[in-house]
């Protein structure tokens, strides 16, 4: 990577930094770019915001989704079959 990554390359680094510790040179390049680029700084913030929203959102919330009656019936029948061969 050149001394200063482009925005596109920076989004790759920022994404990867969400999952693993970057090598030193990449970490510096990312920091340097984020310091001078508003768009990429915004992108980086939003990556973290997305993570927060998705995690918050996964608890057993009042999410209304439920097994459809026919699916429930099918599963009950399968269980029954397994129990009484």
């Amino acid at each position, binding site marked *: 990577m050149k001394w200063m990554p*482009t*925005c*596109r*390359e920076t*989004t*790759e680094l920022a*994404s*990867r930094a*969400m*999952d*693993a510790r970057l090598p030193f040179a990449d970490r510096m390049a990312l920091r340097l770019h984020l310091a001078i680029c*508003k*768009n*990429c700084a*915004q*992108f980086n*913030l*939003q*990556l973290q*915001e*997305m*993570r927060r*929203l*998705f*995690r918050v*959102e*996964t608890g*057993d*919330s*009042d*999410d209304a*989704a*439920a*097994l*459809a009656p026919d*699916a*429930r019936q*099918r*599963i*009950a029948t*399968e*269980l*029954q079959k*397994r*129990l*009484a061969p």
Partner: protein
Amino acid sequence: MTQLDAQTWLAEHGDYLFRVARRQLHADELAEDAVQETLLAALTARDRYTGNASPRTWLTGILKHKIVDLIRRQVREVELPRDQDGEEAVDLLFKQDGHWAEPLRPWGNPHAEAELSQLRRVLDECADRLKPVMAQVFSLREVAGMETEEICKELDITPTNCWVLLHRARLFMRQCLELNGFNRAGAV
């Protein structure tokens, strides 16, 4: 007694398991399959249930393995194209010189209770719009919180593939959320 157990699990935890599965598989039929396989596996393994964890926790543990199995099967079926999976769409987000094509605006803070259900809907819709494999890798990482190494190993894809999928999924999710109103301060 066991018969009662299995049907009780379905009655008491079926919807919960379905929601957990649906959030990661993004398809109702797949989520139903996951619930069924989980309960059948639980039935087979019921002797190993010690009662240390609540039934729901125990069942959820089994479900996670089933979800990964289902995703793995799907990934095999799809055969990841290395370069073409969304690369052109990514090109549209940037200019030739690598700068953003459009400026990014700050998001509001969509956190009021009243907004949560709408937020959920938007997140689901956006995840549905990703290519299936991308949505699944993204969900395993961001929703299930699995480490990328674990995801690569489980799905038998290369780390490079995994990074690329996550990068693209994040670019698209961000854009989709923004198009659905995240850019208006305070609104979802």
